[in-house]
């Protein structure tokens, strides 16, 4: 799952369901972004999960870039938005433990003394159809994929990127 020990480098954390069409976009972008980087520049985790299990994946990493699909209708398919934690601040108590949000996981981890990331950025991608079982992206997402990878690469690892030139 990981290509390096926790904390040694930034973690690229792709989230998604690989058999639910556009929901796999986070996994695909994370994988392509990691392949785009020099060896050892970042670790990759493709996480087909959510809720409290996300907390386990975050433990020990200082810098994390989380890449995920955004709920349909919130953004044009293929469009990218960069979110800070405040944008995701918990407004609601989880309805089930399986959908505890990212902020909830981070807060719980910190209160329990786990090492949670101190530099976390979320890249959310607009999707068209994450409801139909398929291993394929819809056309707009497939077309947007290379551009999304380059855009996130620049924002994270480019000359003026968040984590500098790697």
């Amino acid at each position, binding site marked *: 799952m990981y290509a390096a020990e926790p904390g040694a480098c930034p973690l690229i954390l792709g989230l998604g369901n690989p058999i639910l069409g556009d929901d796999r976009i986070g996994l695909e972008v994370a994988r392509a972004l990691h392949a785009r980087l020099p060896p050892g520049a970042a670790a990759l985790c493709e996480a*087909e999960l959510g809720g409290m299990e996300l907390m*386990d994946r975050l433990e020990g990493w200082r810098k994390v870039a989380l890449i995920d699909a955004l709920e349909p209708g919130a953004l044009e398919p293929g469009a990218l938005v960069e979110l800070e934690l405040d944008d995701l601040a918990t407004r609601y*108590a989880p309805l*089930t433990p399986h959908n505890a949000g990212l902020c909830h996981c981070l807060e719980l981890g910190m209160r329990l003394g*786990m090492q949670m990331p101190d530099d976390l950025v979320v890249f959310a991608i607009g999707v068209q159809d994450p409801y139909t079982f398929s291993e394929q992206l819809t056309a707009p997402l497939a077309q947007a994929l290379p551009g999304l990878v380059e855009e996130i690469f620049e924002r994270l690892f480019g000359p003026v990127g968040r984590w500098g030139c790697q």
Partner: protein
Amino acid sequence: MKKVSIDPITRLEGHGKIEIFMDDDGNVANAYLQIPELRGFEQFCVGRPVEEVPRIVTRICGVCPTAHHMAGAKAVDAVYHVELPLAAKKIRELHYAVYYFYDHTLHFYYLGAPDFVVGPTAPAAKRNVLGVIEKVGLEIGKQVIEHRRFAQDMQILIGGRSTHPVFCIAGGVSKGLTKDDVAELAEKGAKCLEFAKFSLKLFEDVVLGNKEYVDLILSEPYRLEIGDMGLVDENNKVNFYDGKVRVKDASGKEVCKYAAADYYEHIAEHVEPYSYLKYPFIKKRGWNGFVEGADSSIYRAIPLSRLNAADGMATPLAQEHYEKMYETLGGKPAHQTLAIHWARLVELLYSAELWMEIAADEEILSDDIHTIPTATPTEGIGIVEAPRGTLTHHYETDENGIVTKVNLIVGTTNNNAPISMSVKKAAQHVLAGKKDPEEGLLNMVEMAFRAYDPCFSCATHSLPGQMPLEIKVFEADGSLRHHLVRS
């Protein structure tokens, strides 16, 4: 007629939505559960080798992947007409007991406890696991995390992966256990058994020690007199992995008991015009509507149902607590919806005892863990008890083992009608005559829904990463009167 809609706006866990229809006098007339449809699963599977399906089905649900893997594996065993070696069966059961411990721990501390430990009318911001930790102390919070991790590590040890196990194959398991593995399983199991005992003690102290909570559990709005379904062993004791499905009616009388292959003869599905949801019912009684009573053809499949449908627990400590639960609830069957949380803890204890029992069985060290299938594949049905209800997988293939048909009845589907009925009863009580339902009252309605630990998910997650709720109150003419957001 006014409409109150409890409407999650994200896809996480699926878009479960509860619509409550109110009449002109401000009383609840009806309530329906709505779940959006995820499309094309059967088409996705058709044309694939059937042995791949148990690994695919772990992805259809982010909540019960292990249950799907087990039901799928049992269906594939049946497709290939193959019997498992004893060691393989026990290793599967061991893994499943560990998974149950993991899942029930998660549910109780993260979902059930906030309502009781923090309080049903506490502010939503406090009514979560962080609020629970604030109330019971950080040390218990750390214990929860630690024991959950023990169970997770042991699932990886047996199943290969934490969330999406891959070890069940047609006719057995792909990997056996070493003496070192078993020693670690026994060590972690002993700790988890102590933690299960502690969890029941906590429930007794915090919930049963509070008259207000006991009254709430026993109150009429949280009572639903319908039938119960659960898997039982040859002694009619609760079993998660194997046995026959037993269904009792609301009076506790056995209506049917059937092997997996016969499910179609005993269970049918009703469809309402307003929803694509299916409402399973006891076939020989016929569909007689959303009604309670001994004649009802509706049943539920939840931890409390498993205990109601069985004659007892197969392990000694769980049996003690089983007896204590029924004594407190006023006898068997128990129909108190909120007692599902208690039944879940009895099952938690059973899972830990079973874990220890199998870990002490030398048979699991055997190398004989796989029977190579030789028969021509045809059709197979696998049933297990998922934490959220009886789970049925039904596959058909051609003579080469290529899937031609798939049908699943998932745990929560069994509970579609009971959830709607429970929500309606709770809403009738807490919303009756109230023009502006308060957030705390809304939670009292949600408690009826949450007790089932419903799982609508075929997706793992989606940003913003949580399932918020909205309430919309509509006037009789359909216009929006109130729009409340639980925050």
